[in-house]
């Protein structure tokens, strides 16, 4: 079952990546090839095999819930595209 252009458009919307009408055919073909390649996994018997998220089967360590970082807002915002009064600026969201 090859992936269709409208499915790629939906995925691109979820991923917040604009794809132009000129590109969509090519992008769909390439992704269909990759999905076809990975589909060989479907033939493998993985019954009762536990999924492995970490190669050492390690869990995330916990640490005490205390402040460990200094407030560095100014240096972080110095590299932002647009800020004002300590806030990040984006286009108007609510009319």
């Amino acid at each position, binding site marked *: 079952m090859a992936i269709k252009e409208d499915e790629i458009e939906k995925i691109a919307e979820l991923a917040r*990546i604009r794809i132009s009408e000129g590109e969509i055919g090519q992008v769909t073909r390439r992704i269909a090839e990759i999905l076809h390649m*990975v589909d060989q*996994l479907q033939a493998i018997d993985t019954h009762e095999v536990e999924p492995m998220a970490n190669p050492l089967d390690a869990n*995330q360590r916990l640490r005490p819930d205390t402040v460990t970082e200094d407030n560095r807002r100014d240096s972080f915002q110095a590299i932002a595209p647009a800020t004002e009064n300590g806030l990040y600026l984006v286009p108007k969201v609510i009319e």
Partner: protein
Amino acid sequence: MYDKSVAELSQGLREGQFSSLEVTRSFLDRIAALDGNLNSFISVDEGAALRAAEDADRRLAAGDATALTGIPVAHKDIFCTEGLRTSCGSRMLDNFIPPYDATVIHRFKRAGAVMLGKTNMDEFAMGSSNETSYYGPARNPWDTQRVPGGSSGGSAAAVAGRLTPAATGTDTGGSIRQPAALCGITGLKPTYGRVSRLGMIAFASSLDQGGPMARSALDCALLLNTMAGHDPQDSTSSTVPAEDYSEGLDRPLDGLRIGLPSQYFNEGLDTATGERVRAALTELQSQGATLVEVSLPNSALSIPAYYIIAPAEASTNLSRFDGVRYGYRCQDPVDLQDLYSRTRAEGFGEEVKRRILVGTYALSAGYYDAYYKKAQQVRRLIKQDFMDCFEAVDVIAGPTTIGPAFALGAKIDNPIAMYLEDVYTLAVNLAGLPALSLPAGFVGGLPVGLQLIGRHFDESRLLHVAHRFQQATDWHLRAPDTIGSEAAR
């Protein structure tokens, strides 16, 4: 000067044969003369390098030096460097000046190493040829019409071209080992969690690992001594104590059992490359190692499993690049959706977007079990194959790549062909194992690599075997002799 190893430079600096300022100048001069042709650096910070060299000379004079004090090192442009642009090979971060140092960078600075600059790489480390870089491909110093491999292609090309004695790289699916093999240098991907990932821009968080790239195993050991160790700021950093990796490298190989997986010597392997690898194994055998046939039956599944897991993790990690807090922002966005989707369309290159889309698809509702969960189950089968082999052998060996460096442009328009380039390296990342590539000889004037794979946290053994091989051979000492004349042309 530029032909000396890290170990030789370290000794010479301590004995006062030359200063770090002289060493640093000689490499900066070489970069200025040759990198127009190699394109192995994205940024060179000459002023900071010379200041660091002066600081190192003061430390050396005061008797307060480490093995790396005064040694020039180049860092892959994926490691955040405070005050120095860190692009990750992407337009998205072309203007990004990090407000902090990665732990790896911090450790090199603390040791007194001199940072020459930041090396070229595939965009967000996604690629096997360095051709997805926003800054254009680095070139292979053995033949500048060929790729250096990727994603740490700039680091490999710079070390091979003697533009730096050593460099850092990162390896998510082969990105240290494959370029090391194609450029004729030694590169080590440590065990997952051995080297801190803090400040190393994330691609696939359960696979990414930083490591050293240099001319010899001894030099890699000296670098790993500085890089390895627990970092409380990286929650996946291992608490297993780091070792002195340069200790005991000279002891004999007697009793070593080396496993040769039949799947790594299959029909996909270039015949001449296979012959070089077998000759290298014969050398190890003559030093007392035993060669044993082994099998990694699920090895071929590493490609499909990797190309679900890595894109899935990438799609999540790269969601942070939204044009709001740092990095690229598109011109005149009409609304927030437009800001996000056009920033990401314009800021990311084709391969990165392709992987984000594949990953988003694999994680989307209704497909998660069929793709992501399935890939994670197969990942366990792949790891189990290695664990079974390590019952019978100490090290697994085979080729690093299917053949020597390919021509620029040969595979960039065929993603699947590019993915197959990493057929012998991907499984190691899925299993979290350490692996090393070292020069094993030449095919048609181009270097090929021998890959050694070890048990978790067995970096010492890989470095030991590689060092013993390099004591008996001189492949790692060969240098390309054409870049100078080509630059003058």
